[in-house]
């Protein structure tokens, strides 16, 4: 892709996102049409339930797909929605006989389903905020188990709170919905909301945190808050789906929302592909077809003269087998890891004309100085960094070298809040960075890259840089422009639409630096940016870094083992060994320092050869 074509990327992405929403809706509406037209009344009934399942599973995927945490707790929201909407809409007379002990403030509203909906959604929202404030603190498997805990808690409360729910008995008298159009519209609404969220600022943030929590935090994303947003939206939508489900059933009990339902919905989500909205829709459709086919067999049928016996639970077994097959054969689900529909790089979108944007000038960097003072940190008695002090001023590339295990990366981690310092401070413009939460560091314009690549593997190259610009506080339009600026600066325009995990190694290394620069830092900490690059790539990277320092006047702290690379870029070098700073100065000064020579070459040689220094000069100069 040429440079001009790169400028079309934001517009193409926008178009692709809408096409993907349409693709998901197309699958849903198409299936409903086929069901109603081909199978008549039966098909309509199946379609009704399918639409509710689409709403529920898409709601579930809003959390699971974007955070990577499987929730078993969404049955709780569905139960909440069903009971809340049931109580609010139940005819007063029925309510007196069904729920005689219902408190006065809750009884006798007789609202219409639509009239009750805002209240039900509000209840769901509050409950999601409450539970989310706990669950968003947990990660991975612990979070999944906690959601299971939530399901059990709500289930046992539903059984115990008899005055509201009739306990484990059937809760009846809920006005029934039979109007397919109404439910279909609700499902369409949920799909659109889920799609908008997925591609929004908060959707990108939470997906970045899913792919790499440390890197996301370094960009200024607060993973906990991003997860809370996802959980709250997801829970609210699930409450809506639950209310619809309740009105379709007309009568239900706490068991209707327990593990059976949760299992079926998780299967639908995984079968289709958890990480995309289109996947969730496809999963529901596929599982609905499977369920209804198998259900016909469950009662025992006769095939070619052989009567199959009646098997209770055949649907459950077939769901179980379906999910096992999908996980074994297509771990990402039927749709795969991508959203259903064309991506921004699709040929279909070639006709979109680029609009050349005004390239935003980076915020000026003037006199910022990052000062480390007496930083120390030990791990279980090992002193990783001991009393290290030096300055990284704007406008200079400061080298930080030292043998493996010298404490260089730990030093960067101390400055960026990855680790808490035992003693000492890091400050920029009089603001102490030590003690700040790590996602607050970027507010003071200190950005970093990581030693081992930490890209957001599920996002495209463009989105990787875009999310950094958004996290730095740019609005969507400016963030687009900033992302284009950095992709262009690092010659990544041709691969803007590719997913980060499909990129070649050199491009990934450059992308990580582009991502950090999209945050407009005053000070940039680069941890081994040239590691693993060949000499040509290293030279190319050096050229780009020199240009960026000149153009933007930013300060760079450069850690690398390639001394030729470091010598070419840095006018000032700090040397660390065994956690301590052993030398600092111009490259020439550092090269002449006996301690540095000892750290790199070893003591024996220094003592033995008087003329060693000239040899070592060469080694270090290389």
């Amino acid at each position: 892709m040429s440079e001009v074509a790169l400028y079309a990327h934001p517009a193409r992405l926008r178009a692709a996102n809408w096409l993907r929403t349409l693709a998901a809706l197309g699958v849903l509406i198409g299936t409903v049409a086929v069901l109603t037209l081909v199978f008549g009344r039966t098909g309509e009934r199946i379609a009704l339930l399918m639409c509710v399942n689409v709403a529920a599973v898409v709601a579930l995927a809003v959390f699971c797909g974007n955070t990577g945490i499987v929730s078993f707790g969404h049955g709780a929201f569905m139960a909440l929605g069903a009971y809340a909407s049931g109580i609010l809409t139940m005819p007063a007379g029925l309510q007196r006989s069904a729920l005689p002990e219902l408190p006065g403030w809750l009884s006798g509203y007789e609202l219409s389903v639509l009239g009750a909906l805002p209240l039900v959604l509000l209840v769901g929202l509050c409950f999601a905020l409450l539970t989310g404030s706990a669950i968003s603190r947990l990660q991975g498997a612990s979070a999944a188990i906690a959601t299971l805990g939530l399901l059990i808690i709500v289930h046992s409360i539903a059984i115990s709170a008899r005055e509201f729910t009739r306990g484990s008995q059937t809760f009846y008298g809920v006005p029934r919905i039979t109007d397919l159009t109404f439910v279909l519209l609700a499902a369409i609404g949920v799909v659109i909301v889920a799609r908008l969220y997925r591609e929004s600022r908060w959707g990108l943030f939470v997906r970045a945190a899913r792919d790499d929590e440390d890197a996301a935090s370094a960009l200024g994303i607060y993973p906990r808050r991003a997860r809370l947003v996802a959980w709250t939206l997801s829970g609210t939508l699930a409450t809506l789906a639950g209310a619809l489900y309740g009105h379709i059933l007309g009568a239900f009990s706490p068991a209707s929302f327990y593990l059976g339902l949760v299992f079926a919905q998780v299967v639908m989500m995984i079968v289709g592909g958890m990480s995309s909205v289109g996947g969730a829709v496809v999963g529901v459709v596929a599982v609905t077809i499977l369920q209804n086919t198998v259900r016909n067999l469950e009662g025992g049928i006769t095939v070619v003269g052989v009567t199959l016996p009646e098997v209770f639970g055949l649907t459950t077994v077939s769901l179980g087998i379906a999910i096992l097959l999908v996980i074994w054969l297509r771990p990402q689900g039927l749709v795969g890891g991508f959203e259903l529909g064309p991506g921004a790089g699709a040929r279909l979108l070639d006709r979109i004309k680029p609009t050349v944007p005004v390239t935003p000038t980076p915020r000026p960097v003037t006199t910022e100085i990052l000062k480390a003072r007496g930083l120390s940190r030990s791990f279980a008695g090992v002193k990783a960094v001991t009393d290290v002090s030096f300055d990284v001023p704007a406008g200079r590339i400061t080298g930080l070298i030292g043998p493996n295990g010298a404490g260089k990366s730990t030093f960067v981690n101390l400055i960026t809040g990855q680790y808490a310092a035992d003693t000492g401070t890091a400050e920029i413009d009089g603001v102490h960075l030590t003690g700040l939460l790590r996602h607050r560091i970027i507010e003071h314009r200190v950005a970093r890259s990581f030693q081992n690549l930490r890209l957001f593997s599920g996002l495209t190259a463009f989105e990787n840089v875009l999310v950094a610009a958004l996290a730095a506080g740019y609005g969507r339009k400016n963030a687009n422009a900033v992302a284009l600026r950095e992709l262009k600066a690092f010659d990544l325009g041709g691969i803007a639409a590719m997913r980060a995990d499909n990129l070649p190694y050199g491009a990934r290394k450059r992308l990580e630096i582009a991502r950090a620069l999209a945050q407009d830092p005053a000070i940039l900490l680069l941890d081994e940016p040239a590691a693993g690059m060949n000499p040509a790539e290293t030279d190319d990277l050096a050229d780009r870094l020199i240009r960026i320092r000149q153009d933007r006047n930013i300060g760079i702290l450069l850690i690398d083992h390639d001394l030729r690379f470091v010598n070419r870029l840095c006018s000032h070098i700090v040397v660390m060994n065994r956690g301590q700073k052993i030398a600092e100065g111009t490259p020439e000064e550092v090269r002449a320092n006996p301690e540095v020579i000892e750290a790199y070459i070893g003591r024996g040689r220094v003592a033995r050869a008087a003329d060693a220094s000239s040899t070592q000069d060469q080694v270090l100069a290389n």
Partner: protein
Amino acid sequence: MDQLLQQLINALSLGGIYAMLALGLAIVFSIIGLINFAHGDIMTFGGYGIFLSMVFGFPPVAALCIGLGAAVVMALAMERTAFRVMRGADVISLLITSFAVSEILKVFFQNGISARPVPISFPAAWSGSYQIGGMTIGVAPTASILVTIISLGCLTFVLRHLAIGMAMRAAAEDFDMLRMLGVRANRVVAAAFAISGLLAGIAAVIWTAQRGSVDPMMGFFPVLKAFIATVLGGLGSLGGAVLGGFVVGTLEVLTQAFLPDALAPYRDAIVLSAVIAVLLVRPDGLLPARTSARS
């Protein structure tokens, strides 16, 4: 005072069951990253092993041994058929796989044996009680505490002093490294499953001896509690799992004994909320597992 001691015994007895189940979950999780939803069905299968062998006229003690064996066989079979092909998959895929295995097994139990509880009649003496210093103490809780202590003691010995045990502990910290050292991965994983099956079998023996019946969901609810216990203790930490098991068991017994009647139905909700509250303060659990991540 009497009541307190009585409750203490109950708490230790219930906590011991949870601890053994949680430990079985934690051993497997620490090595291959599987949170085994089907662990409860291993326990249930052990229960059915006891039931069927008694139906076929085995004496009670032999039936218990057969139950233990059944649980171990089930655990190994599960590993071989469902989880070995998934080696190296992410936590979520493994979790979902075990979820599916669990659902399928439940249907088999329902169709193969019965959807309703089937009775197991042990000798009357087993459910009796004895007197110490004017206190009545049940035989079953006492036996369960003894069995728990012995099991955990033996397991500690295996993990600390036998080669396979040390291999398992090493695998828990860094499985790839262990494989590079030439230890056969399949053997370590199979041993982990066997031990987790054995612990589930012991739990099944104690559970059925105290309750006198088996149903398809028998193992499910105690294993749910054990899940909570492993998370409370710190996922992947073996000591944490045992501690978590006893904490959950104790909380449950205490709430059962001392909660006012009006709140009694909310017991599970209160216990679980308390556990989640602890996790908010210590997201990695009470005794977090050691990991070797670096940035």
